[in-house]
Every structure is written in C-alpha cells, then in structure tokens.
C-alpha cells in the first residue's frame, strides 16, 4: 500500500513546496511509493486527511498557523519540519525580536507605500505576539532545513522515511562540498557589504569576504559559492554550533579568518554584530541561537 503524504504551508513563501516539484523525474519514482493526499500549492484540499507523513513548511506567525499546525499534527503519524522557516523560524523569525504591535505599526502605518493607511480590519487573522519555529507548538519527528531544501536531500529524506534504502543525511558543513580552495592570505583586508571576491577558485574567507559556509549545515550542495556568492547560511547553523554552547557563527568565522588572513577577530565580530539581522537571518527565532550566552541578538539588532 502506498504511503500517504500530507503537506501544509504556514508562514512561508511556498518555495519549499516548489522544491518538492523540483524533484522532477524522481517524482515518478516517488509516486510509486506514495500519494499526496493534501498539497496546498497544487490541490484544493481544505481538510486534514489522515496521512503517514506530514510535511510542514513555514513558521508559526498567526493564530491561523497555530490551528493548522495542531490539526496537521493530529492527522499525521510522522511530522517533518520542512525548510528553515519550520525548523528555525526562517527570515520571518525577525518578527520574534519585536512585538506584534511594532510589526503592524512599521508595516501598515509607517511603511512608505501605505503610510497613514487604515491597516488590516478586524476580520484579518490576528498575528501572534511573535514568530516561532513549529517545534515550539507541536513535537516534530524530523527536521529538513534549507531555503529551500535541495531536491537531493528531499529525495534522500523522503526515501529514508518511506523505508527505502535511505542513508542518513550528511553532518558536514557547506564547505565540504564547496569547490573553492581555502588559502592563507596574510594582510588581506575585510571587505564589507554585498561583494564577491576576484579569484573564482579561492575561498571567500581567504579573500576577506565573510562567508557562512563553514558554520552552515550542508542541505544545499554549495551552489552559491560556485556561482560567486558567499554562503548566506540559509540551512541554519552547523551541528557544532547547535550542540556546543561556546560556539557561535561569529566567533568561528572570526577565528578562521584571523588564521587565514591575520584579520583582527574583534573586527570580524563587530561586523557580524552590526549586520546581525543578515548574518543570523535564518535561525534568529531558534533557541539554539538565542539561548547561547555569547549571542545577544536583541542588543545587536534592536527590538523590544
């Protein structure tokens, strides 16, 4: 009998659902072993049919999200937090640092395109006070972060869940699949802002550009550095950052850049703190970061 898969889309961009479609011809293989009984981007199923595997995209932002998630949890046997929003809160996790009122005020009353507008009326779904990852609301059985998760890992993860010859997903960082070579370049200056690096085969850190590859879990197969863009950390922190209280994105990157280029660690850390909303964008709302003694997101970014 085919396994039944049900998916749900909370506060997210639908990119994770589109990533499922990116399985391409593997969808045919998947269809031999499973059927989708609920799939919001493709089919109009408003109920929550019983299913073996539940896949949830997006964070919990509103009362509506919470209700949908609870019904999803009740209707499925195994629940997967799918994509960085579901696992860590994702970019919308920034709302976690601010109260609901501050967010509404900024978006609907102070925003340049609708300043002075009436704002949403009472019929709109109420926002919750903050944004949280889904495991703050219900127990989660598996986590597949990524923005969106790469189809390779979706296939591997679903394969394992469907009882095929699934292999455990890699524990390594993005650097492990990066084709650039990390070199010592004493004297290189720290290059700030949205910049790339001249040498296409040499690591960004060696060239003074901050890249999060070494502190990010590989759920992407490193396409960004191959295309000339430093890693933005979209799949969330690497396992050492998650499990070790003293390790953090900024101190690990600062130490590595210091050893490669001689850059002062304090300068790199200061740059991280000034731009914390960017560097910590994908996992702001997760306790794995905000509970760390060295991470002071609220002091760096602001908020309430």
């Amino acid at each position, binding site marked *: 009998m085919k396994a039944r898969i049900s998916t749900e889309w909370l506060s997210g961009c639908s990119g994770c659902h589109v990533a499922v479609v990116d399985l391409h011809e593997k969808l045919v293989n998947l269809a031999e072993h499973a059927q989708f009984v609920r799939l919001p981007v493709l089919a109009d199923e408003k109920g929550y049919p019983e299913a073996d595997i539940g896949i949830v995209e997006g964070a919990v932002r509103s009362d509506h999200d919470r209700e949908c998630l609870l019904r999803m949890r009740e209707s499925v046997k195994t629940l997967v937090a799918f994509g960085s929003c579901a696992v860590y809160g994702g970019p919308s996790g920034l709302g*976690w*640092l601010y109260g609901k009122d501050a967010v509404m005020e900024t978006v609907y009353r102070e925003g340049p395109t609708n300043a002075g507008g009436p704002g949403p009326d009472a019929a709109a779904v109420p926002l919750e*006070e*903050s944004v949280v990852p889904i*495991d703050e609301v219900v127990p*989660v*059985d*598996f*986590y597949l*972060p990524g923005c969106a998760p790469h189809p390779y890992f979706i296939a591997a*993860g679903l394969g*394992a869940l469907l009882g095929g010859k*699934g292999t*455990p*997903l*890699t*524990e*390594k*960082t993005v*650097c*492990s*699949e*990066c084709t*650039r*070579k*990390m*070199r*010592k370049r004493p004297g290189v200056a720290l290059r700030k802002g949205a910049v790339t690096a001249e040498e296409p085969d040499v*690591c960004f*850190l*060696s060239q003074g550009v901050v890249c999060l*590859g*070494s502190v990010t*879990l590989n759920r992407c197969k490193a396409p960004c550095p191959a295309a000339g863009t430093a890693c933005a950390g979209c799949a969330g922190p*690497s*396992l*050492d950052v*998650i*499990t070790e*209280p003293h*390790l953090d994105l900024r101190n690990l990157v600062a*130490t*590595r850049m210091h*050893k*490669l280029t001689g850059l002062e660690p304090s300068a790199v850390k200061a740059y991280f703190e000034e731009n914390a909303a960017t560097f910590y964008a994908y996992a702001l709302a997760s*306790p*794995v970061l*905000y*509970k760390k003694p060295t991470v002071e*997101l*609220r002091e760096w970014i602001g908020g309430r």
Partner: protein
Amino acid sequence: MITVSIDEKACVGCSLCADACPTGVFTFDAAADLPRVSEPRECFGCLSCSEICPATAISHGELPLSESFYHDPYALRLAGLLTGNGGPRVHVPEDRAGGLADLGVRLLSVAWVLKDIMGNGLPVVGTIAGRTLANQLPRYQPPRNLPEALELARREFHPAWELSARAEGDSLSVEIGGCVLRDLCAREKVELGGELCVLFFNYLGGYLSHMGKTRLKPVGATRGAERCAYQWKRVD
C-alpha cells in the same frame, strides 16, 4: 588508541588543522593539497582540529567520551534529528542518580550553613535568589503578567519540579507534585518544612513576583509526602 581520519573529498586545503594541533599529528602535503595524519599516536583527543576545520572533514574514532552535564537536551535532540543518525558526539549519562545524590548532600549542607548564619533572614536569601534568576532568564520574551510568568515557570522548572497554579482574585496557590528537594529530603531522612523548603518557597515567590510584575506576599504552605501547596496574596 584514538584514530584520526580525513575526508579528502570534503577537505578544502586550508591547513588550519596542522596549525591547530598541539601535538603535531598532521603534516600538510602541499603537493597533494591535503593534510596527512603522520603521527596518529600523538593525538590525545582535544578536538582542536575538528573545531577549526571549516569543512567538518576530520573525524575521530575510539574517543573516550566525556559525560556531558551542560549540553542542552533540545539542541542534542535537534542535532540527532537533523541527520537521522549523527548529531552530537557527546555521551549523556542515562543515570545521573549518583551525581544528583552527591549534589543533594552538598545542597543540604549549604542550606544548614545559610540557616546558621542568616537565622530568621533565611527567607530573604531565597527571595533574592529567585529575583536573581528572574533577572537572568529569559532575556528575549519576558512574561508580561502573572499568568504568563506561571506558564513559563511550569516549563522552566520541569522536570525537577512539577508545578500547577491556581489564581483566584488576589490569592495565588501553586501546587507542587514531583519535587527534587522532597525526594532528596526523603532519601537523606530530613523532615519536610526545613531550610530547603523555606528557601525554595521564597525562591519561587521571588521569581514569580519579579517575572509576573506583581508583589506576592507569602501566606502559607502545606507540605506532604506526595504534594505540597504554597499560597501567596497579591498586594499591588
């Protein structure tokens, strides 16, 4: 003997492992652009190389795992479920009873000494300790009122204490089911209602007052072998 292996496909050739190793386990083979494990017997498992490696390319076998008392259970579970089998390379002891018993005896001694020094001032020590805790946690989503503070306390004190609260008008009652201190007192044959109970009652009161942005005046406590109940009155 500890074994060290390098995933050559993952390695990015930075040579930071060779720099970091305090005992010279690695030499860097510039021609192959790879580190080699040339002195494996020198490894004593400090994991400096693993920590600096950007590509998570170094792994160790036969490591004597140290018992972990400080790792966050949430983080360990998340790390395990992110990979399906991997996650933390730490050993979390299943049975912490030995350590807890030892800690418990010391805690009782500290409470006796405090009572000896402070006399009638003992409750204040508890209140200040509770307020101090409230000041430290949580820094990001502090509760806005007493019900939120009670809910947070229920989560944060679990599983060492099982708290359930009932508020009516200006009176607050907190029932305590499971309690590590009660277990400790039973084990060490210490009567209920002693120094530790006084300290904890006021500790909880100090914590809840500060977190719940209210003033709680202790009214009374009933204690039993299975459950205890603490009462406060709101005076603001």
